[in-house]
């Protein structure tokens, strides 16, 4: 068995194929323990205005050890390419990273991405020197367009953000993987360990999740479960699964059974 190769995203290499978020945890201490248990090397944060009422104490950056974790800022909540581009530029100035999880939302209830604005923002950000990881619908054509404008990866959703519905359209994820020249990271929808394993078995290069861990009753235990599931799914993908068949195929010999005539 040959060991897995690191995941390459643009100029970056990651030894973990699980990327985790910082939202919705019951406490920052639980979040830190969950990050540890997940084995993740990359962690997402959001970018928001500061409050003007003087209540600015510690920020999220005080809870992430940047010697051990790479930060992936996002443009979550942006509704236009223009806002997403400026948010990315602010994130780069704040964090000193050219990595950006590009998210341009097209609908408030489903949080489905706005494909047109996402592609436009991706084009501008690539031209501005960013390593762009766009959240996108599980659409092979949209993913291809994003690859063509120079994104370092594509991040199709498994299901709506925070829904925990799992990988709703496994065939799309498989087609996206088969046709993509850049890493495919399933972003959003993973609710439990089997969802993560399925994403990886389909050939996803990595999985990005937040709520699946943070909203579990025990986020630290779920972080470990997700780590194991991503590793199991990845290993199974590399191992190459058996072909499915409609009828049984005995594992034990069908001859020399007792009580049968010779």
């Amino acid at each position: 068995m040959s060991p897995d190769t690191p995941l390459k995203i643009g100029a970056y290499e990651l030894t973990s194929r699980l990327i985790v978020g910082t939202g919705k945890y019951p406490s920052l201490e639980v979040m830190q323990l969950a990050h540890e248990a997940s084995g993740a090397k990359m962690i997402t944060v959001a970018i928001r205005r500061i409050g003007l009422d003087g209540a600015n104490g510690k920020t999220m950056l005080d809870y992430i050890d940047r010697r051990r974790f790479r930060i992936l800022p996002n443009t979550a909540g942006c509704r236009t390419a223009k806002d997403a581009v400026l948010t990315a530029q602010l994130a780069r100035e704040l964090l000193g990273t050219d990595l950006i999880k590009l998210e341009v939302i097209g609908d408030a209830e489903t949080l489905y991405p706005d494909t047109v604005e996402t592609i436009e923002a991706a084009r501008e950000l690539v031209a501005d020197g960013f390593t762009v990881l766009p959240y996108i619908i599980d659409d092979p054509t949209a993913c291809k367009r994003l690859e063509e404008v120079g994104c370092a990866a594509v991040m199709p959703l498994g299901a709506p953000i925070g829904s925990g519905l799992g990988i709703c359209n496994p065939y799309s994820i498989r087609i996206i993987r088969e046709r993509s020249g850049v890493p495919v990271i399933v972003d959003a929808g993973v609710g439990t360990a089997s969802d993560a394993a399925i994403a990886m078995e389909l050939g996803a290069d990595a999985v990005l999740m937040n709520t699946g861990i943070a909203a579990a009753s025990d986020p630290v235990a779920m972080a470990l479960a997700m780590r194991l599931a991503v590793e199991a799914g990845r290993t199974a993908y590399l191992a190459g699964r058996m072909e499915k068949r409609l009828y049984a195929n005995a594992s034990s010999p069908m001859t020399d059974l007792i009580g049968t005539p010779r």
Partner: protein
Amino acid sequence: MIGVVATINGQARELAAGITLEALLRELDVAGNAVAIAVNQRVVPRARFGVHAIGEGDAVEIIQAVAGG
């Protein structure tokens, strides 16, 4: 002294004329290395906080990293 009116994170505020971004952050009790700032849709590098003066009608966005996925 005549002040300037600028929009800080969406709120109109009256500020001292010639106030720099660094002075504004001090007034807001915010550490410069915890934020990034855009003025009129353009990022101002941190190294320029001390010299960039806020002008009349400027739209200033001050952001930080927060929890998210």
